[in-house]
């Protein structure tokens, strides 16, 4: 009777342990497969806005101060959404957003200086 109880306890421990390992693996795989989540339409809203805002950098010199200010504000509005992304995506898009916003701020500064 004692051995049967001990055996059962060991079995339960083993099952719990395997379950935990399984759960961790699924979570880890889920994190790695987040690139597939890029195709998720809900996540694509920020991407669409990002593409629209940051695709204009090549014409930054042609924008008025008001237009540049608006682009900077749109960049700032994107920041909290990008901060919520997974580690890799966040790293890439935070950098891209920083460069894009930085350029608009730089050109705006140049235009303000030119007017002085």
């Amino acid at each position: 009777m004692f051995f049967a109880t001990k055996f059962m306890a060991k079995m339960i421990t083993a099952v719990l342990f395997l379950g935990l390992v399984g759960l961790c693996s699924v979570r880890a795989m889920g994190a790695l497969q987040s690139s597939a989540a890029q195709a998720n339409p809900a996540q694509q809203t920020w991407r669409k806005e990002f593409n629209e805002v940051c695709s204009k950098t090549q014409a930054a010199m042609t924008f008025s101060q008001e237009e540049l200010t608006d682009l900077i504000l749109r960049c700032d509005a994107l920041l909290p959404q990008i901060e919520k992304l997974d580690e890799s995506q966040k790293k890439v898009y935070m950098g891209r957003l920083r460069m894009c916003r930085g350029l608009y701020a730089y050109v705006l500064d140049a235009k303000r200086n030119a007017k002085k």
Partner: protein
Amino acid sequence: MNQRIFIAAALILVFCGSALPQTGVKKKRPLPYEYGRVIIDNYSHKANLAPVVFEHWIHRSMFTCRVCHVDVGFGMKAGATGITAADNARGYYCGTCHNGTRVVDGKIVFQACSRKANMEEEKRCVRCHSYGQKATSDFDFFKFSEPLPKERFGNGLDWEKSEELGLIKPANFLEGVSTSKGNAFVVQKDFTLDPKVEGMPDIIFSHKKHTVWNGCELCHPDIFMGVKRGTVKFSMVDISLGKSCGACHTTVAFPLTDCQRCHSKPVQP
């Protein structure tokens, strides 16, 4: 007697000590196929892998600087990006192209870091994690450079002319990654910079030439932040330390030893 020996020894030590810092270490000039090479070892050693050897010449022949340093998001300083195997496996950084599905120049680009780890996968690791390893590359610098116009320094190639002649066609757009084709930049006209050294030709700086491959945000404001011309003073010492022009012209673009490519305005008699 002992005191004299002691003083002499002390003097020798002082002289040697003061001479040492002035000697410095002479940097070896990289060979044409080594120029632009980056050794990436953020986490490789910790994962019992050799560091990654990244060859700029292979990649710059296929893509503009902007595609990788703006759109893909690689930093401008070696090690600054902090690329991890997980980033690559998720399809970012190297994994943006090296994903086993993207086709470049009619070839499927091999997958970078993968989620599996069997013997077959490990063989592929060495294609990038090749520092100090016996790895063979699909690309041969000498074969590649043979038809291209030559220059004296760096990779020994005139990359700009190579593109003009259609011998290389660096792509400026990466499907699903780039936001714009980046081929219609509105920029300032070329201007001259006075080198402040008598007899030294003026520098002719072309925004047009630089934006073709770099775009605007690669340089402004991170590398060049002064908005008013003349407010930031550039010096060759700073440039050779990797600041301003030196961010590219000490590492990948033609090096500082090629003086007349920047100091190109003829000196008036």
